[in-house]
């Protein structure tokens, strides 16, 4: 089976700094990582391939530097990597991104066989929108399975797949047909550590690099800023909580008194919670 996994290189948000005057992102020295959610998708894809045979192609759209993430994905055990990079893509929002990626997936299909499943992470940590996956599904007419926590039976001959997905208030078990698009819920399986042989292969592998034309994209009005209906008008730093935590004064108090004081402060701050707690306690 042929599986495509879309990954994204993102700045490590833990290390982002904001320019104190201009409120712009200061990227200098901020390392990039593979979007952590995408690693869950990649691991699920690798497991599926290990189970059913076939190949995993990783795809990313981004600056030339994003090749690093692809190489890393190969080290984990992916079979092939495609970098979609073109200055026309700069400023893409989710709609334009899903357009470019879906065109590239089509091209991947023409080059190495139509994918049976396309994976994406649940969302990215920089954009955080969770829309690129559904966008790709719509554009390519793939059956959309979001927030998948487990992949069940897959029948390649009958072209069916069963998954468990997170739904409101529970887990939904769905059956659908291939080809499908799966966005993977976080916390499913940690990414594996690639074997030495995989790492060596990855270090030598050629990453396929496509610009827009090479990916078969001709309608440039659907790409980048021009293809993005949304526009960011203003970026600003959040107002920090004005006051820091009010700390209980621990001097000359017994731990018991402190616990009493804390409980009282909690009940003060959240009127009504005491009643709820009592109601709960009454049930037990």
């Amino acid at each position, binding site marked *: 089976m042929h599986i495509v996994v879309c990954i994204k290189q993102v700045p490590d948000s833990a290390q982002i*700094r904001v320019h104190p005057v201009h409120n712009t992102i200061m990227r*200098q*020295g901020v390392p990039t990582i593979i979007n952590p959610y995408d690693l869950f998708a990649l691991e699920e894809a690798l497991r599926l391939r290990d189970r059913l045979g076939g190949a995993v192609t990783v795809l990313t759209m981004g600056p030339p530097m994003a090749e690093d993430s692809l190489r890393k994905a190969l*080290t984990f055990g992916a079979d092939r990597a495609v970098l979609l990079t073109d200055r026309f893509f700069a400023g893409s929002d989710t709609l334009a991104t899903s357009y470019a990626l879906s065109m590239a997936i089509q091209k991947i299909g023409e080059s190495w066989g139509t994918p049976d499943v396309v994976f994406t992470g649940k969302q990215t940590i920089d954009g955080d929108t969770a829309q690129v996956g559904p966008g790709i599904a719509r554009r390519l007419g793939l059956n959309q399975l979001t927030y998948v926590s487990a992949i069940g039976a897959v029948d390649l001959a009958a072209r069916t797949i069963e998954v468990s997905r997170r739904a409101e208030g529970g887990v939904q078990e769905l059956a659908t047909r291939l080809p499908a698009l799966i966005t993977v819920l976080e916390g499913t399986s940690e990414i594996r550590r690639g074997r*030495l*042989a995989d790492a*060596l292969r990855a*270090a030598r592998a050629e990453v396929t690099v496509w610009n827009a034309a090479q990916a078969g994209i001709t309608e440039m009005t659907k790409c980048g800023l021009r293809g993005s209906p949304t526009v960011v008008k203003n970026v600003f730093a959040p107002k920090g909580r004005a006051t820091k935590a009010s700390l209980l004064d621990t001097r000359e108090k017994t731990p018991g008194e402190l616990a009493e004081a804390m409980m009282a402060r909690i009940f003060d701050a959240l009127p009504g919670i005491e009643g709820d707690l009592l109601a709960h306690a009454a049930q037990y």
Partner: protein
Amino acid sequence: MSLEVFDAIVIGAGPAGNAAAYTLAKSGLKVLQLERGEYAGSKNVQGAILYADALEKLMPDFREDAPLERHIVEQRMWMMDDNSHTGMHYRSDSFNEEKPNRYTIIRSQFDRWFNRRVREAGAVVLCETTVTELLKDTNGRVIGVKTDRHGDAILADVVILAEGVNGLVGQRAGLRQELQPAHVALAVKEMHFLPEEVIAARFNLKGDEGVVIEAMGTITKGMVGTAFLYTNRESISVGIGCMVQDLAENRVSSSALLEAFKAHPSIRSLLEGSEVREYAAHLIPEGGYKAVPQLYGEGWLVVGDAAHFVNAVHREGSNLAMTSGRIAAETVVWLKRRREACSAENLAEYRRRLEASFVMKDLKKYRGIPALLHRNKHFLDLYPRIASRAAQIWLRVDGVDKRSKEGEIVRDLRAARGWRGLVGDAFKVARAWR
């Protein structure tokens, strides 16, 4: 039972390993480079000075795309006491040359870039892969390495150890001794982020110009060590380092020293309003010439910090690392061309070439310095105080005539060290400097 055989394996992707792997790959050898960090530079202390010459010898065009921060136009050398500094500043417009000689860099970015060039030159680079042990044949010859990844060993005709100061692989294989507390300094460093224009204004800089401050004195509390401050584009690197032995004897933590340094009135205002990111501690091999271990053996060579190639007096390390890496690689290439084995006897050529280069010459020149400073702590404590007092006396206009002021300064000096002490100090320094 093994995956495959390489001409050479390089352990580490710091400046030494990169220089070695680059030179080998450029010469068409089949090279594997192994780095334990997520990427080259990810484990390295941030912010440093790059001496262009060593890199230029490898890659004349490096300025085209290397991530350089600022070229240095001004050097400040400060002797500090508790609330002042006496110093020498040198600034020259002639440093604004077409090919500047010194740059500030951010190591994580620089090493990553350098490593990409290594890969482009044709080396196979594996990151997140730690070499756990050297593989030896029954005669004790090094024939390859084992890693922490699942899989077999990898073989090579020669292994170049560029694993940095800790050098665990070499130690485990018995190629060299454990680090001596008297031979290593512990440096701590922080990056202070500030907008580019604030840095330019604070240090009187335009464009890519940069400043370096090197400081010694009471800031190290009488221990052997120095502090520094470099300007990067959008950040300032500050750090301080002391010999590990001194820190242990005085029960002082280097982070406490750094806090005190940052709080010093001469430094505090330079860092004001900055956002601190990335605190890093790292060892520097400062034992000098006498601490240099065995540099080669059957099937192996050692380069860079792992070989103790640091010139502590001039704060040079990465240039010695690159140069030793290049020379080691050139030696291997030379042997390969002559179809000769990488035996200890043949690899001795590496040491001969090093002796002829500035690396060994400089280390030899300063071989007396570490011991000198260790035995004469007053150099770093007393003299800065005296200098500061002298400046105070000299600059204050208070009705005292200048001759009396001169007399007071001289009396101060003599009271502190006595004539014999002063002459002795001058003599010691001159001898160590020779």
